[in-house]
């Protein structure tokens, strides 16, 4: 384990904890601010309370899961194409 005091201040555990608190507060503020600020909904639903937050979160969740899913079929080892078609004389490491 790296000595905490020698570590860069940004990488210290205490700082990271503070950052998480700050980030959480920011998240809460952006949602709660919708009590004060009217968000114009172009298609009704996007004006609902907290829609941006929920949509953003679940859109990302969906994309990560879909990427995982297609990765299951499409991922190959790095050297997959080498030796097949690369004429540079490199061999699989």
């Amino acid at each position: 384990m790296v000595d905490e005091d020698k570590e860069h201040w940004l990488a210290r555990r205490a700082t990271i904890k503070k950052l998480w608190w700050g980030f959480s507060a920011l998240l809460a503020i952006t949602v709660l601010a919708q009590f004060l600020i009217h968000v114009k909904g172009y298609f009704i639903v996007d004006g609902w309370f907290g829609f941006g937050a929920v949509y953003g979160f679940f859109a990302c969740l969906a994309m990560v899961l879909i990427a995982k899913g297609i990765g299951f079929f499409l991922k190959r080892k790095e050297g997959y194409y080498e030796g097949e078609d690369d004429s540079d004389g490199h061999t699989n490491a």
Partner: protein
Amino acid sequence: MRTILTGIQMLEFVPPALVLLTGAALIGAVRGTARTLVVLIAPLLTLLLVWYVPNGVVFEVAFLDYVIEPVEGSPVRRLFALIFALMALVGGLYAYRQAAWHELAAAYAYAAGAIGVSFAGDLVTLFIYWEVMAIFSTIIVWCGASRGVKAAGIRYAIMHLLGGIILMIGIEGLAVRTGSIDLRPIKAEDLYSWMILIGVLVNAAAPPVSAWLADAYPRSSPTGSVFLSAFTTKAAVLALILLFPGESVLIGIGLFMVVYGILYALLENDIRRILAYSVVNQVGFMVCAVGIGTATALNGAATHAFAHIIYKALLFMSAGVVVYRTGMNRCTDVGGLFRTMPVTAICGIVGALAISGFPLTSGFTTKTLISQAATQESMLFVYFMLTAASAGVFLHAGIKFPWFVFFQRDSGLRPKDAPWNMALAMMIFAFLCILIGVAPDLLYSLLPHPVQYQAYTPGNVLFYLQLLLFSGLAFFLLLPLMKRTLTISLDVDWLWRALLPRAMRQVARAGYWIGQPVLASALKSLHGLQKIASTLLSSSSASSHTRHSGFFARAWSIGSTARAVAVLLTVYVLVYLLS
């Protein structure tokens, strides 16, 4: 005063692309300080000329039955040429001390091609500059030193030359059908207009050939990928704006590219390949906007292309410095670099925020214009897809790139920060990302149509803050799912990189099995022929030319030889006289 005015009027007749091409040639011709001066002054001069290109056709040349218009100005053409010239300038600053001279020269010729495309008033001029771009961008790819770069460059060249051929056939067909090669909006309605559309879309990295981009760009040199990211795809976007505004098929193609870019970037481990996939994603926004085709949408496509070139080049610059300093390309090899590379990290983060469209950055004031166009046309599906994609951009490029490169874990690497010229180039582009974000009217005033859009309404800002910050939350909560692996992801190019060679080996093997018996029997009959020949020609032994030798191989007496020659001559003369 009058002389200055005529001087400026004279400038109108100098094609900006030719100035930059001359600069490219001079880079090879001179050395040392002179070369540095050429690198910096050629794009500056080009920038000035671009600014003064007036609206309309500047001059024309008759060619066969057609009219060639090498320079035609309009606001959207100037806007693209302006950012191409600016890119050459700042890219030149970034690269000139680190890149090989031939890479710099190729980059400037490549930029000149893009500027030539911007001002092309007819399809033939467009095609010529299109090919200039294809040739010199291939050279830039080949300047890379990574593994497999030679083969990747060949694949890249084949793809672009094929695209060029498709474009050329389309242009010729259109010229024959309409009798005009004028570059003006057309509809994709017959074979030839479709071929033009397809030829342009190949360069935009549209499906199913998007893979060429992520295949080639990350293998180029750290400086080369900065230039590559800027010109080809955005020149294609301009060609789409000029030729196919409102072509509804582009909406679907654009949305596909947007999603494709995000999903592949999420799976990727190579730092610059993440950014390459995100180029496809961003160009998807623009292609979709051209498909919507309204004034707001075309404004959105143009302004987003302008902002995109800046922040994407900035991201590639930041990644380029990391590759240049560490020699490492993979997220799994780096991490924690913010300690010793603060300038590179901060500039990279500014670029990442801009691409994500955070308020106060250029992405926010340009990308939301495209969403606005979708709402104006009541395109519900398009709007929600673009909004989800905006969240996804933050996920795959906005946080993923800076997090895995500069933070993540301490890799133990302590590389030096960027050399001064690279740092200066990054700072200029980072400044522009923020300038366009806080003062969008500077850019809006250059757009082809008047802009009635206010990005900074409290509701709009709040909506995007919610969207982006909660995407950020999703990223950190889902981190365990996004562990980097030493893998690549298959794409459509698997067909010609793996299946085609395999199929050809199978064909060769089948050919062997079928061909072998045929060959054997052929050999047998050859043997027969040989036997007949040997009875006539061969000598049975070297020592004697006797009667045992073949008929033609015998040693004839001089008398019989002379007789035979005399007979032959007689026959010849008779045939000659009779005919």
